[in-house]
């Protein structure tokens, strides 16, 4: 009787340890996603509660360290910059800018990339040849260089930044959906739909795109992080958004002369940027793992 009990019971403890470990791992894995979610909430709702104007600084409050009290009696949690503008406001408005640009770039480049990639991969032939050569040519340039050229040629504006970043970002989507469409078109259910006389557009919509969606979502997160980083780089170089808008890149650039005396001007938006990019990266990895396991 006791032996039976022992046999029945002994497998249980290792199971408990394993589930405990996976739970810890699961909680740890959720942290980046939660931080990413926090950024989204702050970026969307923060500007509704906090007033900030890029031309509203008071020169009496310039270069105050984090936690200082301003001349109007309020507290600057993250300090102020060289023109007396509140850094906390800049970080929050900058988050909104980054999220909007990242989302727009991913949407536009994702749409274009999937369209081109799927058409090339499914139709093959000259369509594929043309698309592949364009991709090869664009790949020959470092992405940010191309964005700098485009952003540099035109006047600084929101739309130009989005276009300049999309021009390089769609390639990733195109390559992914092209390779996936190429393997999917050989699947029997695609052949079956083809010999049943189903229209090409319908086949792509119902037998190909649903399978591309998951991995594309995973790719979209990393491309999103890349776009945010690239926008900050452009703005840092003075090629990005107009100076009337708020961007982390601009704030970091404005603080680079004061690194020795007022480190917080560059450091705080820099940390905000790095943390966001890292968390989005982790989220992307998780999604990639999830979708590759599902396949």
């Amino acid at each position, binding site marked *: 009787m006791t032996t039976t009990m022992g046999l029945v019971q002994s497998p249980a403890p290792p199971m408990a340890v394993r589930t405990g470990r996976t739970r810890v791992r699961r909680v740890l894995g959720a942290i980046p996603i939660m931080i990413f979610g926090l950024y989204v909430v702050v970026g969307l709702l923060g500007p509704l509660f906090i007033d900030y104007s890029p031309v509203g600084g008071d020169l009496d409050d310039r270069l105050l360290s984090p936690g200082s009290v301003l001349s109007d009696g309020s507290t600057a949690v993250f300090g102020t910059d060289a023109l007396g503008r509140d850094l906390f406001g800049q970080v929050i408005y900058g988050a909104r800018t980054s999220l909007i640009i990242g989302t727009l770039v991913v949407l536009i480049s994702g749409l274009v990339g999937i369209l081109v990639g799927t058409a090339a991969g499914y139709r093959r032939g000259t369509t594929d040849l043309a698309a592949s050569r364009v991709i090869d040519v664009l790949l020959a340039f470092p992405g940010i260089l191309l964005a700098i050229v485009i952003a540099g040629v035109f006047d600084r504006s929101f739309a130009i930044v989005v276009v300049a970043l999309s021009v390089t970002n769609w390639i990733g989507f195109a390559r992914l959906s092209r390779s996936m469409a190429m393997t999917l078109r050989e699947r*029997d259910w695609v*052949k*079956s739909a083809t*010999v*049943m*006389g*189903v*229209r090409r557009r319908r086949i792509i919509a*119902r037998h190909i795109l649903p399978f591309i969606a998951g991995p594309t979502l995973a790719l979209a997160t990393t491309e999103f992080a890349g776009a945010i980083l690239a926008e900050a780089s452009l703005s840092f170089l003075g090629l990005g958004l107009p100076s009337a808008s708020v961007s982390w890149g601009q704030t970091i650039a404005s603080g680079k002369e004061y690194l020795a005396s007022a480190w917080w001007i560059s450091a705080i938006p820099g940390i905000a940027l790095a943390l966001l990019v890292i968390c989005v990266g982790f989220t992307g990895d998780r999604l990639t793992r999830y979708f590759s396991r599902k396949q």
Partner: protein
Amino acid sequence: MMSGSQREESRRVSAGTLRVRDLTIVLPGPRGMADVVDGVSFDMVEGRTTGLIGESGSGKSLTAMALVGLIPDTGVVRGQVLLGDEDLLKAGRARMRQVRGAEISVVFQDPSTALNPTMTIGDQVGEILRERGLSRSQARERAADLLDHVGIPDAAARVGAYPHEFSGGMRQRAMIALALAGQPRFILADEPTTALDVTVQARILDLLGRLRDEDHLSMLLVSHDLRVMSHVADDLVVMYAGRVCERGGAKAVLNRPLHPYTDALVRSVPSVHVESAIADPLPGSPANPFDRPAGCPFHPRCPLAEDRCRTEVPALREIVPGRFSACHFAELAERTSDSGAEELR
């Protein structure tokens, strides 16, 4: 010159038959372009099952797929596939889309890969009907009828199920329902039972036979399984290395082969009742159609091979009425087989 009514008459008759003439498929191989399928001709006669048999790599699946215009992008097709008076190999993309599903449709080998895992069975069966302008609910209703027709129990409730909820045999039934959705006259079944359990195979073959009779279909059954063929096929086309080596009525071909390859195939089939399981296995390996031996492609494995077979390609010719063979010695085999046939049986 035919009169109008005569021509009309001949069209009506010949429309029931799909005629394949000199079908040649050229594919790029390791050593340049090769005729992987070389001058294949046969008929799919209305209401009959035509069996296309051969070892793997003999080009039988490629031949079947070419009938619906599904060949690799890099391939070239020559010859004729005649539906009535129309050559389908010359048909445009739009016309081909009309033919597919509505005139000719295909049952694939493995139903677990031929059904889209993200779509319900009903949506997939009804897809071609939606294409033709039926509403979603109409297509679903028709799909349920079709599933019922192929013997899926409780079909109305199962149109909303996904392929993974079906067993292998049920999936193949659903696949057949899908092929029937466009009300085609010709069904190409590419190894329809190979991926199934032996017990399910017989039921699927029965179903195909029943549908052929009820819906007046012509069927092309592609298989390497001689036993499947002997049960189901009315006519038989035996392929070797991309060429037809023998053609004729199934019973006659299997009982009195007029080509040494068919003979070897028949002998190599394991019989349950005979002591030695694999009676007489075929020596050597199948000829590679990319690197076909000169002369008769079967000569390296043929017990009858002579010098002539190594150089001269035997023509496919009528040996007895309705029986074609591509062997130099077919006439000889025909004359001597009267005694041999008894032995075989």
